[in-house]
């Protein structure tokens, strides 16, 4: 260990990345036996997913309405406001849905996962499990990780639906875009690969954000300050990585 302590920002970053990769491998190994306890995973889908619904739906509605306003404003300059449905759908499905959902997930569900696991560490609950011959990776970490991966695409889908409704509300109800062309143009222009892109993105973000949240909590220093720091790191690392991965994935899909 002493060899790396003198390293700078880069080496500590590489070390963290390596530790994260090892933790991911351990989690994946423990995820197989964890699947035998679907009750735990379902509860975590509820915990990370259902409990994030309100913020996701509210954000979706507002983002959709903004898309409707901005899109209408832009498109009417070229006389093509009928394409508003297409613009909103593509923007939401491919970019805004997965990305904003992941950012909100990191703030709402990720922080609660990190602080919960960190406090379990600080209060000896994880050690107590170890002594009772129950692997906390299998019982605590893996179900939360899997729950987050399942919840993210579902939340992203709901975000998109509510967002489209918001765009429709502004475009069709308030601005007077023709309802028929709003939906038919959207139907004609959106292809399966647009949906796939969004689903793949949200799956990747689900793995990333859940992994970061669980990893930070599991390895948090067992003090009040340590858990607080870990929670902050979860939000920062999840947000930055989500945006970076979005750039890479967008480039890959073009």
């Amino acid at each position, binding site marked *: 260990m002493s060899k790396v302590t003198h390293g700078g920002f880069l080496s500590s970053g590489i070390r963290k990345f390596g530790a994260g990769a090892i933790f991911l491998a351990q989690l994946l190994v423990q995820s197989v036996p964890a699947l035998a306890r679907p009750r735990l995973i379902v509860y975590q889908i509820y915990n990370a997913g259902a409990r994030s619904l309100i913020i996701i739906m509210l954000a979706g509605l507002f983002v959709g309405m903004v898309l409707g306003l901005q899109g209408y404003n832009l498109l009417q300059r070229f006389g093509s406001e009928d394409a508003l449905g297409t613009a909103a759908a593509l923007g939401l499905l491919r970019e805004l849905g997965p990305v904003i959902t992941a950012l909100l997930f990191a703030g709402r569900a990720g922080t609660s996962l990190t602080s919960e696991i960190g*406090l*379990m560490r600080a209060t*000896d609950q994880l*050690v*107590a499990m*170890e002594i009772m011959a*129950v692997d906390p990776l299998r*019982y605590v970490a893996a179900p939360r990780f899997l729950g987050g991966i399942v919840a993210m695409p579902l939340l992203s889908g709901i975000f998109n639906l509510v967002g489209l409704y918001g765009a429709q509300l502004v475009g069709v109800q308030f601005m007077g875009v023709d309802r028929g062309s709003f939906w038919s143009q959207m139907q004609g222009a959106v292809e399966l690969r647009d949906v796939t892109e969004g689903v793949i993105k949200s799956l990747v973000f689900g793995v990333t954000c859940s992994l970061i949240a669980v990893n930070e909590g599991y390895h948090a220093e067992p003090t009040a300050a340590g858990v607080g720091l870990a929670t902050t790191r979860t939000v920062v690392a999840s947000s930055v990585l989500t945006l970076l991965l979005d750039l890479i994935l967008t480039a890959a899909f073009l």
Partner: protein
Amino acid sequence: MASDDVVVAVRDVHYSVDGRPIFSGLNLTIRRGRITAIMGPSGTGKTTLLKLITAQIQPDRGQVIVFGQDLATLPKPEIYAVRKRMGMLFQNGALLTDMTVFENVAFPVREHTDLTESLIKLLVLTKLEAVGLRGAAQLSPAELSGGMARRVALARAIVMDPDFLIYDEPFVGLDPISLGFILRLVKQMNTALGITSIVVSHDVQELSTIADDSYLLERGKVAAAGSPQELAQSDSPAVHQFMAGSAEGPVRFHYPAPDYMQELLSVDES
């Protein structure tokens, strides 16, 4: 001493953290069916010893042998098999906060057996009754006092009928009634069920009433061993200082510091 009479054998264990030695050549033996007290001033590595015995950490050198197996050589599943024969009482209870008292005690049973729900209920209620908390079964750990949480943790530690129980500071901060109760319970489980017990504590008076063997740790080694009576009559200054609870003596009470007078005077100068 027959080897199957030994539950835990610590052989020449060296262990250090960040270059600071905690143990340098620690030797001790925990014998079957006896209550062994591990005593020592704070910071002598009593908790570290428990971590070694439960295989949470590995020694730098030397062996920790539990039930005849060297823990350092065991793969994880084997370590879990050894741990299934142990129970441990944590100082703060370490109850799982997202479950009720009942579910906490049932947790190891559910994880390791396929018992029916009615059998689990019988088992858990019996253990909760033994610690006087059957009525608290549906409370959450947050609703318990510190002493109650420790009693629930004790019920959880004995629910799988372990061969060997570890108590980490079981007497700290208990009211006299709970203290007497826990003391009697430790003794009863030892005499009635033959459970081997390790009690880590610095409550010399309490320990001497129940312990069969005792070890006094000091500066990473065993400073004295024997029955509590033998320790009380020891003429070693370190043992005497600890048993009498004095700050003056060979056992260091003050954390190393520069000269007191000089430091006070230098405050003025700056």
